[in-house]
């Protein structure tokens, strides 16, 4: 289920920089003073429910602006310079049902391309090419509705890949998939040239990453190679699970 790393190619994608980034919403500080420089090709993000993982990914994707601090991909501010950011980062949300916008597979794939400036025809053509490349040629005119959860997630992934971003951001891609689907997805991700940043709260899914960042209550708790961070995380979670702390109300 892991996505092991190959050595970084000579000319990799731009570094992702976060400089003193905080994110507040409704008076609650979701992320506090995060400073990171991400250059690795396979990066994992781990942490408990509500620790701020999804928020960090949304900041990198430029979907929200930080309350303070700066986010940059190379020289680009992904929130302010949307056009440039689209070529740099693509994001896969946790739940395919919150991201599929169109009824047919080909429309879903063509959408981002059209928004990127292709004509309708060219976009549909390229969508078919992507489907062919992934061995899914027959899917073009299939209604998204009729696909299984795992297949719908595959549609989302192809839609993001069609736009050829330098970095892929994946939010819990394995959570609702069964075992065989997980293994297949892991294999596919492994084969990608792009940089991949994956969220999970399952240490197993991140084994073999070049770098794993452990978020805890909106702060970086540990940051390093998978071999160092994951066992420590797993041990703390086991200890935490032995207590009955759920009773505390949030916020």
């Amino acid at each position, binding site marked *: 289920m892991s996505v092991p790393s190959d050595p970084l190619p000579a000319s990799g994608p731009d570094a992702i920089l976060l400089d003193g980034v905080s994110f507040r919403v409704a008076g609650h500080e979701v992320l506090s003073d995060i400073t990171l420089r991400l250059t690795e090709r396979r990066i994992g993000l781990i942490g408990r429910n509500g620790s701020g993982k999804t928020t960090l990914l*949304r900041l990198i*994707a430029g*979907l929200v602006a930080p309350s303070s601090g700066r986010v940059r991909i190379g020289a680009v501010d992904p929130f302010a310079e*949307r*056009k440039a950011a*689209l070529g740099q980062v*693509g*994001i896969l*949300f946790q*739940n395919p*049902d*919150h*991201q*599929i*916008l*169109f009824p047919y597979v080909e429309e879903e794939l063509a*959408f*981002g391309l059209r*928004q*990127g400036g292709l004509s309708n025809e060219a976009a549909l053509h390229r969508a078919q090419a992507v489907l062919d490349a992934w061995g899914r040629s027959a899917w073009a005119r299939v209604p998204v509705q009729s696909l299984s959860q795992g297949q719908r997630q595959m549609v989302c992934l192809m*839609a*993001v890949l069609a*736009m050829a971003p330098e970095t892929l951001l994946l939010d819990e891609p394995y959570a609702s998939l069964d075992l065989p689907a997980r293994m297949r997805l892991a294999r596919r991700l492994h084969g990608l040239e792009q940089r991949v940043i994956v969220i999970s709260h399952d240490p197993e899914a991140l084994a073999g990453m070049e770098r794993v960042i452990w978020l805890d209550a909106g702060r970086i708790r540990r940051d390093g190679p998978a071999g160092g961070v994951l066992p420590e995380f797993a041990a703390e979670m086991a200890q935490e699970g032995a207590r009955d702390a759920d009773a505390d109300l949030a916020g």
Partner: protein
Amino acid sequence: MLTLTSPVETPFHRVPAGAKLLALAGVTVLLFSMGDPVMLGLALTGIAALHLVGGLGLLRHGLRMLWPLWPFLAVLLAWHLWTGEVRDGWAIALRLLAAVAAANLVTMTTRLTDMIACAERLAAPLARVGVPPRRVALALALAVRFVPVMADRLAALREAWTARSPRRAGWRIIVPALLGALDDADRVADALRARGGTD
């Protein structure tokens, strides 16, 4: 969810919702039967004084709720000024302010649960046309619960759009949002049935 009920406990909070609604109905009828701007001005002053019973905070909250009326009042006064019916203009403006302020006072001092309980009693006659009052209360509670769920879903779809387009999402996300909502409706219907249905 956020309601317009004042979080500061006032003496009015302890008055039964039904009594407040009855009083409001009386006041409204009275206001609409008056035509003298001076009398209406006095009525408005009285309603403002009632706000003060609940404290300055309540008065401020009440003023905030009246604020959106200003463009309407401006047009109303200007129009009547122009046609030379100044007295009528004042009467209408003061009556409206007084009626809205009185209604808002009830809203601000009645908790949502009390209101729903009251609505359930008021809906009792509907039983005869085949709508049990229980179901009215249930539908109200369900809708209150769904408002934030629906808002979150729209926000998620808007982000999915933004993630792949330099332009802002428009009306187009209404279709996937509705499809999702219809699926949700089916699942929630299951949950409802699993715990005893609607009656």
